[in-house]
């Protein structure tokens, strides 16, 4: 790939603009822009509401040189809305003229261990292979919710992630896949795993309780279907 023209940041979170995935995408958007490449951000949750939206999204995908899926981990894998779009892209992959395309995936999980995202990445690799795209690399993030609603630039804990993403952007612009070192740096846990696991296991329930409404606090352990 000599000259990169179009980058598509595909946001796979059902939470759309409020999501961690969007925060990461916004950072990438800025980095591509700083490097003179115009990227486009698009939200799957908005596109799948109508047939026209899905059609337009597919056109965007087919028209892009680099596609970066940024998504949360839902039940060990890719969110259903994103699976839907991937099925559509795969089904119509031979309908249009196809150029060389690169596909990268960035997954964030609420659990501390980045490796819990690994199966979703494997599925994305399979998707890239089945649709004739070149696999460009991946980043896996644990404790993704700690990034929610915050600018990546302002978070000390996201330093490794930023460094890895910066290298990834430069490589992609040069038409190369993300170097393994950059994948490893970007996928480092946001805080030491032992601490993260202890905090989550010990205080996670309290943190959730703080988000509950009055009614829910009384019924936390409710078993409506027992």
């Amino acid at each position, binding site marked *: 790939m000599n000259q990169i023209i179009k980058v598509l940041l595909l946001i796979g979170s059902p939470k759309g603009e409020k999501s961690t995935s969007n925060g990461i995408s916004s950072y990438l958007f800025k980095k591509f822009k700083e490097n003179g490449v115009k990227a486009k951000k698009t939200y799957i949750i908005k596109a799948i509401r109508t047939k026209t939206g899905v059609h337009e999204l597919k056109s965007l995908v087919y028209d892009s040189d680099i596609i970066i899926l940024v998504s949360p981990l839902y*039940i060990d894998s*890719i*969110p259903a809305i994103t699976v839907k779009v991937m099925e559509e892209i795969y089904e119509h992959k031979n309908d249009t003229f196809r150029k060389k395309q690169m596909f990268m995936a960035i997954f964030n999980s609420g659990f501390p*261990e980045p490796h819990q995202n690994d199966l979703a990445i494997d*599925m994305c690799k*399979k*998707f890239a292979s089945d649709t004739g795209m070149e696999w460009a690399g991946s980043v896996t993030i644990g404790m993704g919710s700690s990034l929610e609603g915050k600018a990546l630039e302002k978070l000390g804990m996201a330093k490794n992630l930023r460094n890895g993403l910066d290298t990834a952007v430069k490589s992609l612009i040069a038409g190369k896949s993300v170097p393994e070192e950059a994948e490893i740096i970007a996928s480092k846990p946001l805080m030491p795993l032992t601490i993260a696991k202890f905090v989550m*296991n010990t205080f996670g329930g309290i943190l959730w309780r703080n988000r509950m409404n009055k*009614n829910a606090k009384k019924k*936390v352990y409710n078993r409506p279907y027992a």
Partner: protein
Amino acid sequence: MKVVIINGSNNDWSPINIVENIVAKELRKNEWEIETFELRNKNLATCIGCFGCWIKTPGQCIQKDEGNEIAKAVARSDLLVLLSPVTFGGYSFHLKKMLERLIPNLLPHFTKINGEIHHKYRYERSPRLLAVGYLSRHDIESERIFKLLLSRNALNMHSPANYTEVFTGSMTNFNEDKIITLLKNVEEIV
């Protein structure tokens, strides 16, 4: 014993529908109480990641559709059978959509399983899991992912046991024996 069969096939002519009939027939012979849900004909909402099922109405999704009935049936079952075309190694959109609607059956609280953090299960016990996938042609990587996915799901759902089978190729000469043997193994343990 109660079994819930969730069929995530994409169309009426999917080989997965043949698998569903065989599984139901075999389990019925052994007097299982069967509830079947064919998702392709249902207009279920997708999970919107709001966590309302934990922070507003604990144990119940705030989206009012048949997804809640299916989550209820799963919570009361001894065995959950997941049927799906293998899609990039994972489940179809239809099946994945429903699995996300089972989040209310978990608690927001955390626990450690095999050293990893997972959510606690809301109910006293979780059903065993059986997943049967279909691939139009043999694909080692898809099969590997599919099998691993079910074992990961079993961890998250606190399921005491899980079984996976993937069928490939034409279903015209479909050999039922493989499914019958698999079900016998499952029934012995349940």
